[in-house]
């Protein structure tokens, strides 16, 4: 009756069977009786299928528990407890569902997108119909992508498990394996950060997720550490951002680049001594920034209205862009002449 039943339908039948069973079902019973498992070609194929399905269900918040029947020796059976998977009693108005839909929108284009969408599906069950009212119409959130490290770090932080990952240090570029107790992940001002206890340095540290190379791996047991009460992860990130933040010294032609001027520091202090002199008639403005490429794109757009005095990395980035533009124009002329 169930030739090649799609996985979602097999899993659905498994959950229904394990919720309704009196006591438990053994693997043999599951294979013989639950729709979808009878097409497993061999015992091995069935075992693999069943293990994978249990994993999928656990990820969805439906734990399959193992029940050992004393009367049958070490003979194991399985069951799903509705108490273990049920959402606590709650009701959501349509306006509240609207807010949650907006919250889920945060994660568009991110690793957590499917988690947020699934959460919303679950919450719709306890939501009022219709969910059409959009309580916060006109507010659409957007975040910079956090990358693949976010999911594993959140899981580990929740379980209080130690993680290891390869990390490229911001200041020196040194690449090393780090062992960290993950306390909290913070997204702020376009960057994503992990705050935790660095076991090698025996001190709290802030890591930028974009500098993590390769996979984040949990090691050891859950509950391996506690987050100290006296730390302020937010303050640590703010301070780390200040350290990685830089100041661009720009010479701006009169009345030009209003957007850059508006971000200029009111009291930037004295410019570094090695700064070249600004072209005659320009104003020197100090603009804070974190990403060289982004500011270089913006400055290049003003062409000769803005000259970068420093730092050299920004200056070089702008010069490279301008040279590329000159080369492009020459190339295009060439092509046009045939």
């Amino acid at each position, binding site marked *: 009756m169930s030739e090649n039943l799609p996985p979602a339908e097999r899993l659905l039948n498994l959950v229904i069977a394990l919720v309704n069973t009196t006591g438990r079902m053994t693997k043999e019973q599951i294979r013989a009786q639950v729709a979808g498992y009878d097409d497993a070609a061999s015992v091995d194929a069935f075992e693999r299928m069943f293990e994978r399905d249990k994993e999928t269900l656990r990820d969805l918040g439906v734990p399959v528990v193992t029940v050992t029947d004393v009367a049958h020796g070490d003979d194991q059976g399985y069951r799903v407890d509705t108490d273990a998977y049920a959402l606590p009693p709650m009701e959501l108005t349509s306006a509240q569902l609207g807010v949650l839909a907006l919250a889920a929108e945060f994660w568009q284009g991110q690793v957590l997108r499917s988690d947020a969408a699934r959460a919303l599906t679950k919450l719709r069950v306890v939501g009022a119909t219709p969910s059409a009212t959009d309580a*916060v119409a006109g507010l659409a959130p957007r975040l910079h992508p956090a990358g693949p490290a976010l999911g594993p770090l959140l899981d580990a932080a929740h379980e209080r498990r130690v993680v290891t990952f390869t990390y490229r240090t911001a200041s020196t570029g040194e690449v090393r394996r780090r062992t960290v107790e993950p306390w909290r992940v913070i997204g702020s001002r376009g960057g994503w950060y992990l705050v935790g206890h660095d076991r090698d340095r025996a001190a709290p540290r802030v890591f930028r997720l974009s500098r993590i190379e390769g996979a984040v791996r949990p090691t050891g047991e859950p509950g391996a550490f506690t987050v100290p009460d006296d730390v302020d992860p937010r303050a640590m990130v703010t301070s780390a951002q200040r350290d990685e933040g830089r100041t661009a010294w720009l010479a701006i032609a009169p009345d030009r680049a209003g957007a850059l001027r508006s971000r200029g520091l009111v009291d930037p202090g004295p410019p570094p001594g090695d700064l070249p002199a600004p072209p005659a008639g320009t104003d020197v403005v100090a603009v804070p920034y974190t990403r060289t490429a982004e500011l270089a794109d913006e400055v290049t757009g003003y062409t000769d209205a803005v000259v970068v005095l420093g730092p050299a990395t920004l200056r070089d980035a702008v010069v490279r862009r301008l040279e590329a*533009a000159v080369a492009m124009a020459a190339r295009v002329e060439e092509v046009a002449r045939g």
Partner: protein
Amino acid sequence: MAERTPERLTRLLGMVAYLDRHPGVPVEELASHFEVSVEQVLKDVDTLWMSGTPGYWPDDLIDFDAGSLESGVVRLTQARGMVHALRLGTREAVALVAALRALREAAGEALDPAQREVLASTLDILTAATGDAAATMDVRLSVTAAPEVLAAARTAIAEGRRLHLRYVDAADRVTERDVDPWRLLTGDEHSYLQGWCHAARGERQFRLDRILAADVLEELVTTSGDAREPTFVPNDEHAVVEIELDGRARWVSEQLPVDATEDLPDGGLRVRLRVSSEAWLRHLVLRLAYDVRRVTPVASARAVGGAAERALAAYRTPPDGALD
């Protein structure tokens, strides 16, 4: 295109539990509630109808009122015990709670008291249901706009009224324009007002920190942002520019309102754009300098090259030019 197994399973279980709470729900309503098509709802109902406890005799199966379904209403008559909503997993809870917290903190000023109340109550309910799971993540949004600009934008969006903006763009021009505001895009680094610009006759995003002033006008908005398609309406006043690009600049055809895109055999592409301002075009071509192969009319590229040449001259001045 095919839906992933966890998503489908979550909805199938969710639908049974939902229908157990709501006796008799019109198919269309069910579809819009779970944000799927009517066709998908009917497929899901068919699947549920054939699912149940081992044996799979009629009494073992999840059941619906067939007559009711024929008249377009889904009425569950047997849930086989699947009446509970699923609790949220760790990542699921964290994702939503962190987003709600960030909204409450950053967008507070952009919301009226009733909206703030909805946000706060939702957060309370979710926090109560998920415990401390959400303490592991923290997201901060930045809404760096003048409070009066934000207030005007909020009022205009809520009342569907047009806005008059004074705006300084990336090309450094201060312009005045009338805009139909659609939504505020709240980001972790910058926030934007998205809407229809009547001056440019196109969809535009205005960075909030570059809006110098905003006034709510009497006129009602005449466009809406619901359509997901590019909404640029070409008109004869706009110069037509054709740019041939390397494949890695493909985002241009996805993010800009291009008139036409043609894929080239080597993976490159040719786009046709209507350009309302020289400054905008210069900015675009500068940004694409590495990827541009050909520009028609060629004068546009020449102008960009000339401007870049003048800019480079400033960098070639000897650094000891302190004689000024």
